[in-house]
């Protein structure tokens, strides 16, 4: 094993139950510096609970270290190096834009007010208005301006673009990638709008019923999963190669293959699947995260996910 990068988040057997409901069922998690991890799962899967535990907002069982600290006992210390945007509605409605800047500059030792001002200058947000007078998109821009001006090591985003139109969503992730992210920073994001983040993420994690259903890097994702729009005459032979999922769109059959799946063990073929073999069946392309999600989670999860096509 090569020397690994420093873990920003390290969890072992992270568990959390609300009464009889188990929100986190003993998950292990390791996020290294410089990664952008997408935590994808249906509602109630345990994503927010996991993030809340990481942010010191909820008590948990098991081991959890964020930047070497215990988030539950050291929340205020940890927040010098961690930022989070919970969702669009947490900025206090009474605060004025200038007051928000002043306050964060007052309490946060790593906040660069000039940077926040220059980010805000690119928006239409009036400096003297209250948060309650801003549109939902503007509130998110304001929150992002505050957060991006903090020199933090870890940024946690829980449904940051909920309820925003597509323009604001695109701007949000563009700003995040171009103006904020670098190799010393780490981002963890949960969202239902998976198509927005597919090209943003470096790592992908599916979480369901409090357990991790899939954990891979995006390179792995792209080399491992292949989607084929199968030509009608090849459907039978395609099915023989055991796609992990099959769906129909515009009268065509679209199958998802896992190239790691060992056909030899199944006795179906005497070799592993490869791209060339699949391209003989039809058009080969990289699947969307949403499609893989449906394949991995099954149909129930797909319905709950809402955003999945």
């Amino acid at each position: 094993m090569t020397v690994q990068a420093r873990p920003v988040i390290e969890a072992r057997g992270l568990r959390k139950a609300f009464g009889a409901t188990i929100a986190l069922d003993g998950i292990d998690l390791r996020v290294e510096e410089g990664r952008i991890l997408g935590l994808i799962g249906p509602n109630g899967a345990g994503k927010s609970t996991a993030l809340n535990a990481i942010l010191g907002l909820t008590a948990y069982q098991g081991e959890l270290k964020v930047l070497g600290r215990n988030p539950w006992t050291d929340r205020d210390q940890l927040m010098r190096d961690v930022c989070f945007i919970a969702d669009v509605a947490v900025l206090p409605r009474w605060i004025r834009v200038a007051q928000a800047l002043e306050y964060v500059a007052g309490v946060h030792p790593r906040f660069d007010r000039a940077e926040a001002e220059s980010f805000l200058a690119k928006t239409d947000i009036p400096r003297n208005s209250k948060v309650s007078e801003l549109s939902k998109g503007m509130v998110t821009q304001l929150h992002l301006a505050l957060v991006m001006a903090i020199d933090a090591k870890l940024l946690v985003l829980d449904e940051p673009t909920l309820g925003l139109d597509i323009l604001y969503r695109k701007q949000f992730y563009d700003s995040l990638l171009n103006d904020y992210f670098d190799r010393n920073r780490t981002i963890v994001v949960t969202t239902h709008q998976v198509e927005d983040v597919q090209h943003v993420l470096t790592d992908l994690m599916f979480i369901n019923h409090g357990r991790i259903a899939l954990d891979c890097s995006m390179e792995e994702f792209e080399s491992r999963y292949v989607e084929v729009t199968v030509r009608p005459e090849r459907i039978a032979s395609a099915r023989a190669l055991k796609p992990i999922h099959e769906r129909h769109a515009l009268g065509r059959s679209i199958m998802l293959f896992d190239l790691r799946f060992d056909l030899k063990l199944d006795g179906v073929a005497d070799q592993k699947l490869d791209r060339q073999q699949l391209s003989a069946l039809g058009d080969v392309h990289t699947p969307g995260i949403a499609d893989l999600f449906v394949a991995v989670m099954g149909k129930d999860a797909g319905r709950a996910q809402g955003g999945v096509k």
Partner: protein
Amino acid sequence: MNSQSDAVPEFPVDAQRIAPAALAATRPMYWSIRRELWENRSIYIAPLVVAGLYLFGFFISLFWVPRSVRGMAGNHSMAPIVVLAMPYSHADMLLTLIAFLVGIFFSLDALHGERRDRSILFWKSLPVSDLTTVLSKASIPLVVLPLFTFAVTVTVQLIMLLLNASVLVVSRASTATQWAPPLFEMELVSLYCMAVLVLWHAPIYCWFLLVSGWARRATLLWAVLPLVAISAVEYIAFRTSYLASLLHARLLGFVSAAFDLKDKSGVPIDPHFIPLAQLAPGRFLSSPSLWLGLVFAALCLAAAVRLRRYQGPV
């Protein structure tokens, strides 16, 4: 003071080195208090509005005062000094009452409002500890409101004095006889009274703060109803009213604890003008009720700090 300020230029480097560190520790506290003032503007608007209205009323009344003072002078039921002090002490009492009400309503909402509007998630995303947050909120009724109210009271009373003097001059009334109360003595007593009230009422504010951090809704009911209910049950079951008298003493007991309301010959003192000699700070500071109350207040604050760690939006 002088020796300190003289010493600073001698060690400018040291002073500069120490200052930012001390500043860094108090900065979150300072900004947390400022943000309370941004959010709850009633903290300063309510006393100011009441002070303005009172001054307006007083100004109108001034045109009657010379006559009434003369009329009262013959009335031996009230000492002339009490008659002179009355409008000034009424201003003080009114502003103190307003500060109490604002403090109560502030405390009831302090740790509830941030959970109700979900902004607790924003506040908790910043490096401000639960201890700092709770202490900054407690400092509003315990420090900020009393000091501000005292400053407003002094200002109001000085303006009253000026108005009074100018009316006397304009009406060419005689200023040879005493026309103003001993205002400086009154301010000292008022300052003492403010400190007494803060210490005596601290458990009330802190209890309300704790309830505001705990109750999911209807904080006023949760803060008051259980006490009323227990008092009622106590009375029905045992025909006693220990809790009720305890609550009554907590609200008003400071008067007998901190002041001698009878002079040496046993004559009752009019509360509108309490001379300095009638203050009883020694008795007040050695009163067990005071210290038990303060211990209760500290326990409430400690519980509120602990509780805030667990609390999220409601």
